[in-house]
């Protein structure tokens, strides 16, 4: 409880500092400056024929001068590549590949005949998964910063400007920056751009809105303050390409490739004895569709649990290892106990409680006090993060949306938390069974 309180406190400090520092920043300075760093946007796509044109259009219209958009067709079996070729007037070019990171074979590189799309490069490669596609994208990219995104995410127009600024504005070298990911279900989207924000219509998605706000505005902001981040969301993260290549790029053998990359980048910097920073900014820059049915959510969370466990297992030498400073002594153990072990401990606690209840050794009056305390503490923390959101970006402008959010914060510990517990347990079982699949999500559109 003290830990969560401290996280909330650190998060509040970090957000306040960020908002103070950037309240009057004119991002046009980065936009127009020839000295701004270049950014390669890497968007892997697999069987996204239906939406790829709109998604690429949205990426090409992001506000940033020195940028290129690299779409990596990861061996799609549908018309993803054909649609891109037809719409953007693409033709194959002779590209001399500099293979700095291993990846499945490249079939071709395409550029548009139309100079309007000069920023666009499309790669066609054999299917190897998201991590493999990103590695190929990095090989092709020409700029010093790489923005790794999910092609189906919607980015705010000024997302790159805001993500680039911490790279320029830190006394210690920054190796990665992430921004807040929000839920786009039920939001109004036009031509690949978010027009109006609404709270999702389905109950499951609404719970996830609360979960995301809490995770980003409380958890990650606090860890950013401590420079102890272990993950930058795979949906959107801007990285220093040299460090990504230096540490070996994305690991294709895990389903938690986003977390694994951050862990390896951090280890790499420690081994190089170089100071560094990983930063999260509270700006809501990326909007994604979350699972709105139970089976899709189960598959997604199952993958997240397995990804976390794979990363923790791959880097077990960090556990309380003073050689890695805060990473070894605080960040890793926190994830070990609070992200991996927590559901197991909770289930164990429930088993012990059931046994004690049957054997009649429970003081029910005290039990009620403890349960009410845990419930109210959880609701208080969640409400606090809703307050953070209201104070900072206030994306949910309608009063009824705010009331619904507060209502769902009251329901969440009773309805949604048991589901999260279930996902955690099933994910653990599947990890030990050796399950490796990604698990498809049924996209229903915004």
């Amino acid at each position: 409880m003290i830990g969560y309180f401290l996280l909330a406190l650190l998060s509040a400090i970090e957000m306040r500092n960020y908002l103070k520092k950037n309240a009057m920043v004119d991002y046009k300075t980065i936009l127009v400056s020839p000295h701004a760093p270049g950014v390669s946007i890497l968007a892997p796509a697999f069987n996204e024929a239906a939406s790829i044109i709109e998604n690429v259009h949205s990426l090409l219209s992001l506000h940033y001068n020195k940028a290129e958009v690299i779409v990596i067709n990861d061996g799609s079996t549908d018309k993803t590549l054909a649609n891109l070729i037809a719409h953007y007037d693409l033709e194959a070019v002779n590209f001399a590949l500099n293979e700095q990171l291993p990846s499945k074979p490249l079939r071709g590189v395409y550029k548009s005949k139309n100079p309007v799309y000069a920023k666009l490069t499309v790669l066609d490669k054999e299917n190897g998964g998201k991590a493999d596609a990103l590695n190929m994208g990095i090989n092709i990219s020409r700029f010093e910063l790489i923005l790794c995104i999910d092609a189906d995410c919607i980015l705010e127009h000024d997302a790159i400007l805001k993500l680039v600024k911490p790279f320029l504005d830190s006394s210690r070298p920054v190796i990665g920056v992430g921004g807040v990911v929000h839920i786009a279900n039920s939001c109004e989207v036009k031509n690949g751009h978010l027009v109006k924000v609404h709270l999702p219509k389905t109950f499951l998605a609404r719970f996830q809105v609360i979960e995301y706000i809490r995770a980003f505005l409380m958890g990650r902001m606090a860890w950013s303050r401590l420079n102890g981040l272990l993950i930058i969301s795979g949906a959107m993260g801007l990285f220093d390409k040299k460090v990504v290549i230096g540490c070996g790029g994305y690991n294709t053998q895990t389903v938690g490739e986003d977390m694994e990359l951050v862990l390896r980048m951090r280890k790499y910097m420690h081994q190089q004895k170089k100071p560094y920073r990983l930063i999260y900014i509270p700006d809501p820059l990326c909007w994604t569709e979350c699972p709105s049915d139970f089976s899709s959510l189960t598959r997604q969370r199952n993958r997240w649990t397995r990804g976390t466990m794979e990363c923790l297992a791959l880097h077990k030498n960090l556990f309380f290892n003073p050689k890695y400073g805060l990473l070894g002594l605080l960040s890793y153990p926190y994830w070990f106990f609070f992200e991996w072990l927590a559901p197991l401990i909770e289930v164990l606690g429930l088993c012990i409680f059931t046994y004690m209840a049957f054997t009649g050794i429970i003081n029910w009056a005290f039990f009620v006090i403890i349960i009410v305390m845990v419930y109210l503490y959880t609701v208080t923390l969640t409400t606090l993060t809703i307050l953070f959101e209201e104070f900072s970006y206030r994306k949910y402008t309608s009063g009824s949306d705010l009331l619904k959010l507060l209502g769902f914060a009251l329901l969440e510990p009773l309805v949604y938390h048991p589901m999260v517990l279930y996902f955690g347990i099933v994910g653990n079982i599947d990890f030990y069974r050796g399950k490796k699949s990604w698990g498809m999500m049924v996209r229903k559109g915004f």
Partner: protein
Amino acid sequence: MTSISPYFTNYNQFPELIQSALLVVGICLISLLFMYFYLVLKRVNRVIRTGFQAKWSMEINQLLAELLADDDLSTTQCVEKYTHKFKKLPINRKAIKLIVEAEIVRFHQQFTGKTAEILSGLYVALELEKIAYKRLRDSNWENQVHGIKILAQLNIKQAAPKLVALCDDEISTLRMEAQAAFLKLSDQAPFRFLDRAREHILDWHQLVLLEVITTAQDLAIPSFSQWLASKNDSVVILCLKLIRQYQQFEAIPNLLDLLDHANDEVRLLAIELLGQFEAYAHESELINRYKTANKNEKLAILHAIGQIESGKQLGFLQAQLVDDSYDIVIKALLAIKKHGTVGEELVKQLYETALPKNRLLIDHLSDHRLIH
């Protein structure tokens, strides 16, 4: 109420753990109620404020639009006329005064020339600069920054002396904003901060300063080579960027000294500039350094030789094509290609004799869409 009363009456008899839990329950309940109340209050307050602001903004906008259309008057006459009109508004009320200030600043951002001058004049005539000066004395640095930004935007030259102390402030954002504003507003020694800078000037600050310097009107541009011996590496880097911006060729001898600088970025910039300035006479010095240079310097040297385009180093460039590094080979080929028709001819010859790997590189380079 009776069901929870035992928790209060028997509080002292409970074990310590339960007492603490009850305490947490109490704190959480109070916090929740407070947060709910606060959220409601904030929303209600916002609705009222937005309505108030919309009403007055519209009225002020109308006056400002009238001012824009009134182009028959001289600047002084226009300022006088509209000062009188604005004073009819209840601008002694702080909230309205702030809306007037915000609207004048907003309009000013969109205009230059006479209109911008009139708006600045109106701002001073309405004594709104007093709000900005008050902000400069505020204990919150973000309010100070706000004040500085407005003074700089409205080009209030009289404010320059008040910014001197802030140019050396320990808070980096405040220091940068003060330096940027001082550059814009001061007629005397606007670049004095380059002499005094002890702290590292962050890349972001350099970007802001470069933008202010390159867009400021009537700013006397000094020879930036005078700061190339600064002990502050970030000052040297900023000045190198400015030397490039203003094409100060007289800095070439100083650039040669910087080739031995301890800072990697300084050395790279110096090499880049020698190339950009086509320092023909110093090409051999770059070649002499090549062997002992690190990879980034090698790339910069190859690029510079391509830019100098003397034609004397084609053999040297050709020799680099056997390097194991993709980047080096690409840069060397590009440098050869940059040598006009001689370079193009040489690339053609190389293509005939090249290994398949290097042929692909040449093909790659012949597509202008892939060259960078």
